[in-house]
């Protein structure tokens, strides 16, 4: 966790989009790599890098299946990943609830 209590693994635009997209599916449903790429709008190489980081943390799992000469990769958000997104969302709510009217956070006032 960083200073804000936000999970640094999710608190990156691309990975936040990946996790939020997968979380929109019912628990346990998988999404093909190509559909995810289409929805996020990333190059395959970029998407693979971010998926690998999320998979190393146990937030997603991926599976490769081969059908003849074609290989299909599917990804799914794990329960750990869904819980991490829930924690992240709550941390964001707490932070935004603590924002002043001028948009500065309470904890920034406390630091100064």
């Amino acid at each position: 966790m960083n200073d804000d209590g936000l999970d640094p693994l999710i608190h990156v635009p691309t990975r936040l989009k990946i996790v939020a997209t997968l979380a929109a599916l019912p628990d346990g449903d998988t999404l093909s790599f190509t559909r995810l790429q289409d929805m996020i709008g990333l190059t395959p190489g970029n998407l693979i890098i971010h998926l690998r980081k999320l998979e190393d943390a146990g937030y997603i799992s991926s599976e490769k299946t081969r059908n003849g000469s074609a290989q299909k990769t599917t990804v799914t958000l794990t329960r750990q990943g869904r819980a991490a997104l829930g924690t992240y969302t709550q941390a964001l709510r707490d932070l935004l609830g603590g924002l002043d009217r001028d948009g500065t956070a309470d904890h920034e006032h406390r630091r100064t």
Partner: protein
Amino acid sequence: MRGDTVNHTSDTTAAGNGGTLGPEQAAALLDQTTQQARRKFQPSPPWLLVTRAVMVLAALGAIWLSVRGQHPYRGPTAADIPVLVAFIVVNFAATVAVRRHATAGVSGRSRFSRGEITVLVLAIVAAVVAMAGLGAAGVDFATYPTSVLVIPGLAWTVLMAARANWRELATGLAIVVIGIVGAFAGPAGAWAVAAVGLCVMLLGSAAAIAWQQRA
């Protein structure tokens, strides 16, 4: 979560691919991505349900207008049948196309299993067989248009209960209720019950889905 104070588009662009995010930007991005994903994965989008509601009201309402003055009741005219068939074909094709697009690349509970599809097809066949059997036995309401809704509605209700999908379960129950109410409306009145009942049910579903997508 809603980022009410932040412009979504500029936030997303400003945040970039690997840049840093402020809490407000993150909240806006999360909100925007979640809503977009829910819309794209939705097999019954509100626009389709509203279109279907208008179509069902127009098609079945037109038939009701043509049969309501019949004494004795003779049923839809030859001119009404193509309208009804066209409505069923267009409705089925649009539903399949939109569902296929929404669930492309998705595996799991978002898609119907073969067993569920078999149950639904058998329910439709059973409804037709039951109506034919009861009609041959001289039961009046067997030939009402709403009677065909009861068995498929019950099958849908059971399937959605098994999936713990309460919104769709309510849809199934509404279809069953329309079928039962139609049985008391007389042969011509049943067309009006079907037209208005299904239209209201579809508009209700569209409103519920639109609300869920924004929640």
